[in-house]
């Protein structure tokens, strides 16, 4: 009984982490679906989300719902700007140029923002917009931050689903992920579809950043690197380009990370995550939901 409760408790920890990974990995997967590129600057958008929320709290004392809207809006705009400025001129360039540019954008964001004039390279305590409350259910303890993370993630996913499957832009986006060229020939403005994709990805990462900072209240300019890499692994795991795959991948990575710490040793945690990636790349390179048809 005790062990079961312990597993449930750890599962809650894992879902909390996995929810954030899921939100970030959606951005990777959607951008890959449309442009066939890996947007390495995505982890830094996540970081920006946390910092925007931080300034929203400390400078303007905004309530939590407003913070979500502000964080996601601004990160969406920044993601779109990045695409317009850095990636669009390379639309017809080889894919490798795009990849290198993405790494460049990521380093540019990190090191520019780590200047003292901007965010500074220091670790900053993140003030929570509300007090933490613990609820004891027998031996399991759950707090309001867990609940908020679960509910915000689920609401975001529902909105995403509606956007993708019920709106014209969503249909265009799905069409573009099938074949960008043909979609353009059909008279769809692919540039705005791409912007739309980056915008949604950015907004989700921004929300992820806010939730992450709330759960683990310390932020710094380089906080996006590791969650970014892990979410990317999550996207690969679920089958890159596939939206529900990214969500599932995020939860798998989050939960396995927690379980490795809980039952093996915390020292192996990141190692195990990367081993999972290796195994998938070796035996199922298209991920869980990926079709084994070669994508061109």
């Amino acid at each position: 009984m005790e062990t079961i409760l312990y597993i449930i408790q750890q599962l809650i920890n894992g879902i909390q982490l996995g929810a954030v990974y899921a939100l970030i990995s959606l951005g990777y997967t959607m951008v890959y679906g449309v442009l066939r590129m890996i947007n390495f600057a995505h982890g830094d958008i996540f970081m920006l989300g946390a910092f925007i929320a931080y300034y929203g709290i400390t400078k303007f004392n905004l309530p939590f719902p407003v913070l979500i809207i502000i964080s996601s809006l601004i990160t969406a705009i920044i993601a779109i700007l990045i695409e317009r400025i850095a990636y669009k001129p390379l639309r017809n360039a080889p894919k490798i140029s795009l990849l290198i540019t993405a790494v460049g954008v990521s380093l540019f964001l990190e090191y520019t923002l780590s200047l003292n004039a901007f965010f500074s390279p220091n670790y900053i305590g993140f003030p929570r917009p509300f007090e933490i409350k613990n609820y004891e259910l027998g031996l399991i303890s759950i707090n309001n931050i867990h609940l908020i993370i679960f509910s915000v993630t689920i609401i975001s996913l529902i909105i995403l689903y509606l956007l993708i499957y019920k709106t014209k832009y969503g249909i265009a986006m799905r069409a573009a992920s099938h074949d960008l060229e043909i979609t353009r020939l059909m008279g769809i403005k692919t540039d705005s579809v791409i912007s739309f994709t980056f915008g949604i990805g950015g907004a989700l990462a921004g929300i992820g950043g806010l939730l992450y900072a709330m759960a683990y209240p310390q932020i710094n300019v380089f906080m996006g690197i590791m969650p970014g890499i892990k979410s990317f692994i999550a996207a690969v795991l679920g089958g890159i380009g596939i939206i529900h795959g990214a969500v599932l991948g995020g939860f798998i990575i989050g939960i396995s990370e927690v379980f490795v710490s809980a039952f093996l040793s915390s020292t192996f945690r990141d190692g195990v995550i990367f081993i999972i990636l290796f195994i998938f790349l070796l035996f199922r390179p298209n991920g869980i939901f990926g079709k084994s048809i070669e994508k061109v």
Partner: protein
Amino acid sequence: MKRIFLSFCFLFFFSINSYAKEVVKIGLITPLTGDIKTFGESTKNSFFIALEEYAKKGKYEIKPIIADDKNDPTEGTNAVLKLITQDKVSAIIGPLTSKVAIPVSEIVNTNKIPMITGTATNPKVTISDGKRKKYVFRACFIDPFQGQVAANFAIKDLKAKTAAVLYDVGNDYSKGLAEFFKNTFQKNKGTIVAYESYQKDDVDFSALITKIAIKKPDVIFIPDYYNKVALIAKQIREKGLKSTLLGGDGWDSPELLKIAGDAIVGSYYTNHYSPDRKDPVADAFIKKYKQKHGNVPDALGALAYDATWILLNALDRASRPTTEEILKEIEKTKNHKGVTGTISFDKNGDAIKSTVIIKIEKSGPKYVTTVNP
């Protein structure tokens, strides 16, 4: 006419030169940005207070060169190479943390530049593979002693029977201190119920804390710096765990109480000195520091001040300001009256000193007791 003018110039030049003091360059390596910047700031401030005092009566004119290591070993090695090859410093104060000081000490030793760190407590800073690094000294005690004191305190004063240890696996200071604590705690018939590590950039400790929580240890030992400790302490209390928290000298920052708040109140840590201790040298320094910077210096600042003065005294005694002469005089240092106590070096270049135990209360850190080696 031209010749006369030139000779005047020469005369002028030499006369200036003979009146001005000879310039000696001293480097300071410390983290001015990054995860432990408050330590870097207090170190730098204290370094400059020592230099100012020295300027009034010293034999040489000191040209300080400051380098930021960001508490990162790579940055630290770059900084020390720049200080040695470009700035050509005669001696170095710092680095602050063990993980930076260990690689840096290797470099200064091969380049034969004397270095005194105020605060790096890991044994490997002055010794590598059983061999003494001749050019490296420190003004503080070492971690085997600190870990031992913390473990003894937990067993004898806190009556702890079980302990959990949480440490940063990529940090020599944290790793070393954790190990020494564990050894002593077990030797004294205590049980280590959990011995868990994490990475430098981790912020999610929920899995570890849940794991520790079911074992309900009497104390949790967290040998890390204040930022990480604050984060861990908060998550520990949020999980409803009530164990007493224990730590080392990395906790000594006003930021700890500010960030962690109630979560950290009631915890204990070992430290180099307590400003509450009455001592003329310490009081004078604290007063000066307070006047200049408005707050009481932490132990790391005090140690940097001591390290700087050990170096400056050695420099003054040296017949010439060459690295070899300075080294010889540093080695001779005996009973240096510093802010953090009387300092003499043992054969490893480590200072033989007592440690104090400090309790964190709502109003701030409070002195509990002193333990002698």
